[in-house]
C-alpha cells in the first residue's frame, strides 16, 4: 500500500529536514556575536507583480544610497568605517510573502536594520516585524495614515501621509478662492480609488468641506476600483454633477486611462488634480497636451530647485539614464535617513538605532524643506510640494509659495475662465 510507503519515508524526510535546518544557518545559536565587520541591511520590495515598477525604483534608490556610502569607504559607526551589505528580496507584490520574507531577513539573515517595502498594503503587512524582533525599519513607500496608529516603536516613515495631500490641496484651493480666481464655495467632484490611499484622500477632502462649508461643497463623492479600466460611466456622473473642480486620487495606469476618457468626453473644470499624479513622464507621454495644467501634490519632483535635488537628478540621469521621480528620491532619502540614524547611534544595536532615529533631524533630505524628522508615532514631519504641468513638458512649482522657485499657478485652468 502506498500509505505504508509514504509513512516509512516520512520520518526519514523529517529527520533530514531537521538536520539540514540548522546547517542551513550556521550563524544561528547563542554564541557571542563577533565584532561586526559589516552592516547588514535588508529590504523586501515588489520587484515583480502589480507594484513592480515602483518596487524597482526603490531598489535602485536603495542601491544608489548604499553604493555612495560604500564608495566613500563605508559608514561611520562609533568611529569605525563599516561596509554596508544590502540584501533585497522580492515579494511579488504579495502580502503573505512580503511579511514572511521580512521575517526571514530578521531571523535568518540577521540583518541589523530594515528598509521598507512599497505600497501601503505591503508596508502594513511588514510592519509587525520590526517591533517583534526589535529591528528598526525606515519606510518610504507606505503613505496611509493608519500605518502610524498601531503603536509601532521601531517603524519610521519618510513619506508624508495621504491625508496631508488632501489637506494641502484644500489649502491651495482656498487660497485661490480668496484671490477671487475660483468660485466660492467651490463645487467639488471627488473620485477616489478604493484603496487605503484613496480613502485617506477622500476623508481629508470631505473633512475640509465639512469644516469650511463657505469654501467647499462636495457635489459628487464616488469611488472606483484600482485598475478599474473603464471610467466612462463614472465620468458621465462627474459631468452631470456640474462641479467647478475635479479631484481624483489615482495610481498611474488609472490616471492615464481616466484622464484620456475625461478629455475624450470633453469635460472641463476650473481645477483638475489626480492627487500625486501629473508630472510623471509616463503620464505625460501617454496624455500629451491633455496633461497640461494638471495640478499635483508630490513628495518630491525633479522640478525642485534646491541644490541637493538638482545634484540627485543629475546623478540619477547619469547612472540610470532616466529622470528620477518621487519614488527614487524617497527611496534614496529613506536609506540615507537610516544610515544617518546608525551613525548617530554609533552602534549596530537595534534599540540604540531606534532611539537615534526617534530623535534624528536629518538635514540633507531631498523632500521639500530638506528636513526629515519623526513624531512620537514614527510619522514623518514632512510635507508636499504642489506642481502644475505646463506646455512643452515643463513643470512649475506652484505651492507652497515659500518653496524655492515657486510661481503662481494658472488658475482657473485655461479655457475655463
Amino acid at each position: 500500500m502506498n500509505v505504508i510507503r509514504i509513512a516509512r519515508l516520512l520520518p526519514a524526510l523529517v529527520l533530514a529536514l531537521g538536520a539540514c535546518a540548522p546547517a542551513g544557518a550556521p550563524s544561528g545559536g547563542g554564541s557571542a556575536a563577533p565584532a561586526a565587520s559589516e552592516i547588514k541591511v535588508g529590504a523586501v520590495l515588489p520587484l515583480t507583480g502589480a507594484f513592480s515598477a515602483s518596487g524597482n525604483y526603490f531598489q535602485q534608490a536603495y542601491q544608489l544610497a548604499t553604493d555612495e556610502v560604500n564608495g566613500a569607504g563605508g559608514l561611520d559607526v562609533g568611529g569605525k568605517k563599516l561596509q554596508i551589505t544590502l540584501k533585497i528580496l522580492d515579494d511579488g507584490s504579495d502580502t503573505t510573502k512580503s511579511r514572511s520574507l521580512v521575517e526571514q531577513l530578521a531571523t535568518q539573515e540577521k540583518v541589523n536594520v530594515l528598509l521598507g517595502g512599497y505600497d501601503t498594503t505591503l508596508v502594513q503587512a511588514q510592519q509587525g516585524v520590526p517591533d517583534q524582533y526589535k529591528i528598526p525599519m525606515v519606510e518610504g513607500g507606505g503613505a496611509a495614515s493608519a500605518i502610524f496608529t498601531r503603536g509601532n516603536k521601531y517603524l519610521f516613515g519618510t513619506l508624508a501621509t495621504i491625508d496631508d495631500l488632501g489637506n494641502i490641496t484644500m489649502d491651495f484651493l482656498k487660497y485661490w478662492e480668496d484671490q477671487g480666481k475660483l468660485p466660492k464655495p467651490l463645487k467639488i467632484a471627488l473620485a477616489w480609488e478604493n484603496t487605503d490611499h484613496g480613502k485617506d484622500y477622500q476623508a481629508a477632502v470631505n473633512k475640509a468641506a465639512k469644516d469650511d462649508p463657505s469654501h467647499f461643497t462636495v457635489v459628487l463623492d464616488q469611488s472606483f476600483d484600482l485598475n478599474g479600466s473603464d471610467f466612462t460611466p463614472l465620468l458621465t456622473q462627474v459631468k452631470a454633477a456640474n462641479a467647478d473642480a475635479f479631484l481624483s486620487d489615482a495610481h498611474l495606469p488609472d490616471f492615464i486611462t481616466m484622464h484620456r476618457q475625461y478629455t475624450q468626453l470633453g469635460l472641463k473644470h476650473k481645477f483638475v488634480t489626480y492627487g500625486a499624479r501629473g508630472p510623471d513622464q509616463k503620464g505625460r507621454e501617454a496624455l500629451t497636451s491633455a496633461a497640461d495644467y494638471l495640478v499635483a501634490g508630490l513628495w518630491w519632483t525633479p522640478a525642485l530647485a534646491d541644490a541637493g535635488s538638482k545634484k540627485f537628478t543629475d546623478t540619477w540621469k547619469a547612472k540610470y539614464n532616466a529622470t528620477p521621480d518621487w519614488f527614487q528620491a524617497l527611496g534614496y532619502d529613506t536609506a540615507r535617513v537610516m544610515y544617518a540614524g546608525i551613525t548617530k547611534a554609533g552602534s549596530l544595536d537595534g534599540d540604540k538605532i531606534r532611539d537615534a532615529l526617534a530623535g534624528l533631524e536629518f538635514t540633507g533630505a531631498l523632500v521639500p524643506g530638506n528636513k526629515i524628522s519623526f513624531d512620537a508615532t514614527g510619522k514623518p514631519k514632512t510635507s508636499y510640494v504642489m506642481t502644475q504641468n505646463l506646455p512643452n513638458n515643463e513643470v512649475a512649482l506652484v505651492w507652497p509659495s515659500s518653496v524655492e522657485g515657486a510661481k503662481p499657478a494658472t488658475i482657473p485652468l485655461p479655457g475655463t475662465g
Partner: protein
Amino acid sequence: MSRARLPLLRVWLPLAVGVAVLAAFPALFPGELNYIGLGFLTFIFVTLAVSWNMVGGYAGQVSFGYAAFFGTASYVTAILWSRYGWPPFLTLPLAGGAAVIVALLVGLPCFRLLGPYFSIATIGVGEAARVLALNLDQLTGGASGLNLPLAVPPKPIFYWSGLALAVVAIAVSGWMRASRVGLGLSALRMEQDAAESLGLNTAVYKNLAHCVSAFLVGVAAGLYVVYFSYVHPNQVFGFDLSIGMVLMGVIGGVGTLWGPVLGAAIYYPIRQLLLSQSSLVAFNLLIYGLLLIAIILFEPGGLLGVVRRIARR
C-alpha cells in the same frame, strides 16, 4: 507477521515518530525562528491543500473559490479579536463555523453544476466575495484592511497549533477516504448519473465534504490572521490563494491522501526559496508555470505519482 499487525508497525508508528520529531523541532532549536515561522505557514498550507482535496480530489469538484471561506473566517477571527476583545484562539471554532455557512450558501446552488461549470461558478463566487469585502467598510475596514493587535503569542505556539491542525486535517481526510462518504464521493466523481441511479444522494455527499473542508480551512484562516495580525481583503479573499490550493493539490497528487501534503510541503517553502534567491526571482513565475505544465502533461498523478514510480523500481 500477521497482516493485522502491519498497520500499527508500518504506518502508525513511523507517522507518530514523524509528528513527534516535527513537534520537537522548536524545543530543540528555539533560535531558528525563521524555520519555525516557515514550518507554521507550511502546516497552514498543508491544512488548506488537504481540505481542498476532499472536494477537489475525492469528489472531483474542482473549486477555485476557497478564498471565500478563508476570507470570511479571517474576518470573523479578526473582528471578534480586535473589536470584542476575544482571546484570538477562542475565535477559531466560530471562524470555522462561519466558513461552513458560506460553504452551504455556495454549495447548495453550485453543486447542481457539473464539471467545468462548477469550477467557473466558484471563480465568480470567490471574486465576488473579494469585491464585497473591499466595499463593506463598516464591517471589514474595506480597502484599509483591519490592523490587529501587534502583541501575539510566541512563534512556537503557532507552530504547534499549526502542526496539530494539519494532523487533524490529514486524519479527517484519511477517515473520509476510507469511510462510506469517501466511497460515495469517488463514485460520484467517476460517474455522477450512475451513482445517483444507485440511490446515492450525491448532493448530500458533496455538501458534507464541502462543509467539513470549509471548517478546517476556516480554522486555518483564523490562525493565519492571528499570526500576521493584519487582514486585508486582497490578501485573504485573493484569487492567488484559491489557485494556490488547487496548485498544491495538483502538484502533489490530486485525489490522494498524501499528495496534497507533499504538494503543500513543497509549494510553500520552494516559493520562499525562489523569492529569496536574487538570481531566480526573475524566473519565479516561469518555473511555476513550467512545473505545472510538465505535471499536467507527463504525470497527472503529481509528484506523489513520481515518488510511487521511483519506489516501484
